[in-house]
């Protein structure tokens, strides 16, 4: 039994089956005290299921869940000191905003007056004091979202669970709420478990991220680690844009792997345990770690011809057809330095890569 007080939630070998369908396949992960932790993955990968198991709405088919060392997976939801911000808010329509926020405290046995006083404080924290007397239906989507947040924070839960809380908001509001959520997490010191399918949101907000797919944990780590050292094809592809190339490993020596891709282009990159000579695997090359030049700057520059230029705003993406081989996307910032590396369609160019840009992946 883990007794570590630094671990807020410990999921040990949790399995969830619905009949014959396995929604979660043996998930184990530890979420640290006071951490902004994100569950990231495409729709249907089991994020909500895992969150609901922690909250107590779904029982655990196999395995166990601990909250600061205490097993909670057999407790009913109302006995678990965790609160949830629901995806569709689930505000009580017949209660005022103030009573919505005070509800949890009342249920914990606080007097109505005490509950209201604390609810008022929390509403102030999310800048909704002037709406305390309204009914939820009289608020905008963004305001309802904050009420849901205030309601879940008011009882001072040990862990706050947030299931895609921002998905219904428009982009601008969403960005503002991302900042606010992060700020609230720091201010309250409560452990947040945040669910999203938006990788950018996950990268900007999280201390650590668990990437999930098809009911399995793919990788767990800090944003930078997951982006720059994706462990497998799924993670590399799901997080950010990347050029995924099929490569064949020719030789491995001194921690470096020599590979070639279609068209005979040669590349050298860091070797990865478990990928030896002769292996046919994937390689990830982030577009922003590549740059174009008129003439090759190194032995391993790849020769090709510009097919298309795409204006993105902050960046410009150039699509290059390698001679006799695959297609590459190269991104450069829309700045005077970046624009010096832009070439018109039809031009012969060399694709160069920064140190460590190429990564071999386990499938």
């Amino acid at each position, binding site marked *: 039994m883990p007794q570590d007080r630094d671990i807020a939630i410990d999921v040990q070998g949790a399995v969830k089956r619905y009949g014959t369908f396995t929604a979660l396949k043996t998930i184990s992960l530890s979420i640290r005290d006071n951490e902004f932790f994100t569950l990231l993955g495409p729709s249907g990968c089991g994020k909500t299921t895992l969150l609901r198991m922690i909250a107590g709405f779904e029982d655990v088919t196999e395995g166990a869940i601990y909250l600061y060392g205490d097993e909670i997976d057999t407790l009913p*939801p109302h006995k678990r000191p*965790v*609160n949830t911000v629901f995806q569709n808010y*689930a505000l009580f329509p017949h209660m005022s905003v103030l009573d919505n926020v005070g509800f949890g405290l009342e*249920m914990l046995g606080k007097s109505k007056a005490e509950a209201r006083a604390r609810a008022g404080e929390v509403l102030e924290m999310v800048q909704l004091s002037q709406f305390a007397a309204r009914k939820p239906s009289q608020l905008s989507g963004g305001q309802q979202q904050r009420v849901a947040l205030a309601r879940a924070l008011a*009882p001072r839960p040990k862990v706050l669970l947030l299931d895609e809380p921002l998905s219904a908001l428009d982009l601008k509001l969403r960005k503002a709420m991302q900042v606010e959520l992060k700020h609230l997490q720091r201010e309250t010191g409560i452990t947040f478990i945040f669910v999203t399918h938006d990788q950018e949101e996950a990268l900007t907000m999280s201390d650590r991220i668990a990437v999930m797919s098809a009911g399995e944990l793919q990788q767990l780590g800090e944003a930078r680690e997951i982006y720059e050292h994706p462990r497998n094809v799924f993670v590399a592809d799901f997080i950010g844009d990347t050029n995924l190339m099929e490569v064949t490993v020719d030789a491995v020596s001194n921690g470096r792997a020599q590979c070639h891709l279609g068209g005979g282009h040669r590349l050298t990159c860091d070797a990865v345990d478990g990928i030896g000579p002769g292996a046919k695997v994937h390689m990830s090359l982030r577009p922003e770690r590549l740059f174009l030049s008129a003439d090759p700057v190194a032995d391993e520059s790849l020769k090709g011809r510009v097919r298309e230029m795409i204006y993105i705003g902050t960046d410009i993406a150039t699509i290059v057809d390698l001679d006799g081989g695959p297609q590459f996307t190269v991104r450069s910032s829309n700045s005077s330095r970046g624009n010096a590396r832009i070439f018109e369609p039809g031009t012969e160019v060399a694709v160069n890569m920064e140190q460590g840009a190429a990564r071999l992946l386990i499938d």
Partner: protein
Amino acid sequence: MAGGGATGGTVQSETYREARTLLLLPAWVTLGLLTLAPLMIMLVYSFLTKEFRGGVIWEFSLDAYDQFFFDRGLFGDEPPKIEWTYIGIFWRSIWQAGAATILSLLIGFPTAYFIATRPEGQRAFWVFLVTIPYWVNLLIRTVSMKFLLRDEGPLNDGLIGLGVIAEPLGIVNTNLAVQLGLFYSYLPFMVLPIYAAVERYNFALSEAASDLYAPRWAVLRRIVIPSVKPGIIAGCILVFVPSLGSFLAPDLLGGAKTFMIGSLIEEQFKGNAGNWPFGAAASMILLTMVLILLLVSARQSRKEAV
């Protein structure tokens, strides 16, 4: 051009108005013939003079109302005192109907909740089961109830057989028998509106409440019941109102002590002993009370909707 367009619009809306009048005609005729006209006849009759063998004499009179509320002695020449007989019958009717309504609510709410929480494909089947007994005529159902409840009936036999009681309960001819009869007569009117409300209820709210430390009972009391309240109110009205004016259950299951307003009215129009203006007046008084009840509950729910 702009003027022409405006004229066209007027012509069109006139056509529309005519069509609408025509389409609404059946509704107006139905309402007029089947609701307003009988009501007006009742109202007029309640202010006429009684004919001894039933029927009325076309002479204005307040006797019917006077008889309902005041006692002027055997020969009608004493100073008026309040007549408690009919008010008492009224009061008992309200009480009986109220008890039947509460009983229906206590049984009907869990039933409706149960049905609404079945998987979607099964709900129609459960609703069907609830309504099956109501394909049988009310009279026959009420008589069957008497057979169930009587001292030699299966209820008493069963309880004695199980050793719960030694003597038959003697339920028939009591208030309880009438309440059970009314309850059984109108139960679906309680179940169906509550079922409809619970089916529309967002169960995520129950999850949110239990997430916020509410035990099951508190979830029910603080979240579910307030959310389905319109269905509960509708069900209560639909059971209470017909129970109030019912005469079958009190006649068949009750005795002299359980006489209700419905039976009183019924008697005034039956055979030669009746008093039509008095029956009409009692009906108008009943109707007024029901209207007041409906208005109060409508105002209540409007206040809460804001």
